[in-house]
């Protein structure tokens, strides 16, 4: 499919796919401190007032991930940032009931047109994907570059040229997004329809006048 399989000695690049990397989850409400007198649990707000550094227990799960760090930093940087790869149906829940090829086609090609939070990865036996997968841009992990280089057996492959180019653009688009309220330019009727679907949206001042249709001025 869209993958290639570099030599083990090849340097790490953006788009490289690794298996079995540690994804750590920390709770700021329950910091599990390891001390010489035993374990304690505390809130992070308390911890930062007392400690400069400390040892804690963190849960970790081995996951599949793709290198997000750009090539130059992946060659020289101290750390490599990766995004987790999960089952497509878990990342894009709109597809959880999808079965037909036509529906799948509609979902997959959409991310060429709109800025999604995922990057589609088709199944491929050689790389180890038995079903449709997705890069979840929302979940990142960070590991030492030097130590990741030593784990070259965990690199199962990388995106081919065309997929890598697409991935590079998609990830940069994802991280350059800015938040805005999508309903701000809607006129009264459009807003009414929008509020029917998303009642929690708060109209802007120019949308609150009763007598205006489009725009805010009478």
């Amino acid at each position, binding site marked *: 499919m869209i993958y290639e399989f570099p030599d083990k000695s090849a340097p790490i690049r953006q788009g490289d796919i690794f298996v079995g990397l540690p994804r750590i989850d920390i709770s700021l409400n329950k910091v599990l401190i390891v001390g010489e007198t035993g374990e304690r*649990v505390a809130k992070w707000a308390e911890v930062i007032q007392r400690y400069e550094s400390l040892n804690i227990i963190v849960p970790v799960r081995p996951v599949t991930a793709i290198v997000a760090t750009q090539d130059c930093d992946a060659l020289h940087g101290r750390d490599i940032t990766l995004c987790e790869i999960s089952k497509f149906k878990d*990342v894009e829940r709109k597809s959880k009931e999808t079965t037909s090829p036509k529906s799948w086609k*509609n979902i997959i090609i959409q991310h060429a047109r709109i800025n999604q939070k995922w990057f589609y990865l088709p199944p491929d036996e050689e790389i180890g994907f038995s079903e449709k997968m997705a890069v979840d841009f929302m979940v990142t992990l960070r590991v030492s570059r030097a130590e990741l280089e030593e784990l070259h057996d965990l690199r199962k492959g990388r995106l081919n040229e065309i997929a890598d180019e697409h991935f590079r653009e998609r990830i940069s688009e994802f991280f350059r997004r800015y938040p805005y309220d999508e309903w701000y330019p809607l006129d009264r009727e459009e807003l009414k329809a929008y509020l029917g679907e998303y009642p929690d949206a708060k109209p802007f001042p120019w949308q609150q006048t009763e007598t205006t249709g489009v725009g805010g001025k009478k």
Partner: protein
Amino acid sequence: MNSSNTVDLKDRLPESRAIETGLWSECDIRRTAANLWGILRIRKIAGILLPLVVSTITAIPDPWLIEKRRRDTVVTMSIFKEVIGHAISRSEALRIARQILEQAEYERLALAEFEATRGIQWSDEL
């Protein structure tokens, strides 16, 4: 008198007197005293010099002492610092850690569910 010296123990009864035999002379006694004085002087000098010599040997860092001090410091600091939160058992800590992991995964899935209800809904008609 013969050449032997006698010791007259005046405060004792006559029958407890004992004749001490041997070559007793003043010079022997003085030489012995001088020897003793010399030995004492040597010991005194050695007593001063030895600690000086030994102190130079033990002037190198003592790893055991350093380790003990470090450990004592760590323990002291730990006791001082570990007054936040509350104590839990190791098994309780591991149980909470597992909960944190599962909660994070559940929340990611819930967010994906929420987002799936918003935005463009794909269908066969698209």
